[in-house]
């Protein structure tokens, strides 16, 4: 574990990377994080002087799509992030060690780097039946999570699972899968939602924490502002068609071929906070809307339980029959209208009857 006291710079120099390339890397990283020109030298300084940050990467109930995304990062390359910038001491999916040897690293890191390591959590702990739905290393994952969280500097909640619960927490959530912030209350938690999150967003968050030694600025919901402060809709290249009132009405219509707005097809861009429409995917190649499919809102809370991916208005299930707000509203308004009409009719009849009676009395 001597590597933990090394700096990023000393590691890459040993790997044969020139100082010139190192500075190029710093400039590129500063640019991709949207920082100013001075930040490049601050990053360089940090990577030259600060010891590499130990990272423990744990997996709860998840599908590993976050890891799959992470290893495809282009700016910075994941190789730089994993092999040089951080000291990835534990990640049971990709580490060489196994069994007791691997588990021993957890104890070691806890003792050696108390309060200094970052705990990155992919997936979430199921709490039902004492946590037995996710057994990791012979004990419930929730216990392992709590143990490692105790001495961590901060926790990164990777993906929709760790941030919100995702598919395993969708109704009726039989295993009682619970997001990290509902289990760990006394540590700073940064949510990086998405199913999976964008690779560059993941490595970008790691780079920021290592460079500045603190968490980036978070929004109200604990997400880094630099990647999650705007909706897909706000930066969507099809936005002009939305403002113009030009929509795809059917999947195979002329409007779909022309690349009109997918709002009517249930695109969740207007309610989804993520960087897809700016950073895009696979090294900036494309993102769902660019490929002709609406956003499904995978970085939002409970996106599995918000009705069809292809409906504009969300279905409400509380009323027995699945209907959206407008259908329910129209029925309610119709009922009130009918009641008003009936009441008016009774009133008129009563009044006429009353008048006739009055006429009888006076005559």
């Amino acid at each position, binding site marked *: 574990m001597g590597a933990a006291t090394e700096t990023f710079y000393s590691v890459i120099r040993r790997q044969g990377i020139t100082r010139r390339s190192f500075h190029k890397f710093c400039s590129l990283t500063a640019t991709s994080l949207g920082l100013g020109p001075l930040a490049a030298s601050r990053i360089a300084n940090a990577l030259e002087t600060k010891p590499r940050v130990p990272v423990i990467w744990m997996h709860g109930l998840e599908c590993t799509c976050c890891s799959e995304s992470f290893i495809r990062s282009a700016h910075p390359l994941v190789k730089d992030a994993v092999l040089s910038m951080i000291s990835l001491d534990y990640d049971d999916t990709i580490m060489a060690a196994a069994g007791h040897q691997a588990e021993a690293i957890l104890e070691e890191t806890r003792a050696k780097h108390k309060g200094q390591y970052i705990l990155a959590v992919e997936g979430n702990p199921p709490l039902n039946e004492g946590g037995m739905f996710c057994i990791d290393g012979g004990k419930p994952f929730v216990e392992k999570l709590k143990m490692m969280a105790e001495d961590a500097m901060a926790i990164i909640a990777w993906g929709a699972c760790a941030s*919100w619960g995702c598919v395993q927490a969708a109704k009726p959530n039989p295993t009682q899968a619970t997001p990290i912030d509902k289990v760990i209350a006394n540590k700073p938690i940064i949510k990086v939602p998405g199913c999976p999150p964008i690779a560059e967003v993941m490595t970008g968050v790691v780079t920021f924490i290592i460079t500045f030694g603190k968490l980036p600025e978070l*929004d*109200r*919901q604990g997400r880094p*502002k630099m990647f999650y*402060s*705007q*909706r897909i*809709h*706000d930066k969507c290249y099809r936005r*002009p*068609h*939305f*403002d*113009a*009132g*030009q*929509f795809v*009405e059917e999947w195979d219509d002329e*409007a779909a071929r022309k690349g*009109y707005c997918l*709002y*009517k097809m249930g695109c*969740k861009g*207007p*309610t989804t906070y993520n960087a897809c429409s700016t950073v895009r995917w696979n090294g900036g190649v494309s993102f769902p809307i660019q490929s002709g499919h609406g956003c499904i*809102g995978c970085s*939002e*809370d*409970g*996106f599995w339980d*918000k009705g069809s991916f292809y409906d*504009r*208005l*969300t279905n*409400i299930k509380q009323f027995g029959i699945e209907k*959206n*707000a*407008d259908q*329910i*509203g*129209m029925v*309610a*308004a119709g009922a*009130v*209208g009918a009641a*008003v009409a009936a*009441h*008016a009719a*009774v*009133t008129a009849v*009563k*009044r006429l009857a009353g008048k006739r009676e009055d006429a009888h009395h006076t005559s």
Partner: protein
Amino acid sequence: MMDVAARPAEAEPDLSAIAADAAGEHGVGRPAVYVYEAPVRICHWVNAFSIIVLMVTGYLIGTPLPSVEGEASANFVMGYIRFAHFAAGQVLAVFFLARILWAFVGNHHSRQIFYLPVHRKHFWKEVLHEIRWYAFLEHEPKMYVGHNPLARTAMFTGFTLFVAFMIVTGFALYSEGADIDSWQHKLFGWVFAIWPNSQDVHTWHHLGMWALVAFVMVHIYAAVREDIMSRQSIISSMISGERHSATEKLE
């Protein structure tokens, strides 16, 4: 104010005028009481107009019109609809606030729709009486200068609470486009602590609209009906501010 001349009886209790009125010398024998002050009436009609605009444009935002032809740069249909919605929403918010302020300085009728005397037994008895009147179980309605207790309950929930809910959720949704650092987000961003996914806020905003549609229908029907049945002026009162009554049992 021009109304002062029209109601000498209230401005300064002129006993001879009342006596003359009772004797039928004013022709109609309907005592007029000044109920709705000018700011109340202005707020009423501005809010009514805003709410109509908001309902129509709001529905069209959720269910947009068929696509328009031509270049995107040559059209701004959705943009104009959304602009009208946001503009009407801000007008409604401003006049709703103004109306709350007026409740502090206006007459006691102006405060009626902002709270309910739920702790008074008498209030509930009168609500029950009004319900019985609307259920055709009472023969005679009671007369009130302002709102009757049932109408007051309906105004408090149907207007004050619902509109406040719509303003809060509306600004929260607006803050999504306005930016995370906008004053709208600072003031109303807490809505997303209740519903972290703004899709839910949209759904509630829709349901709130339909609740207001139901309120508006009942509100207009009750006003027209009371105008005819209870023999008090209701609709014209919101224009002139005065309440006329055929009988003199005003409470």
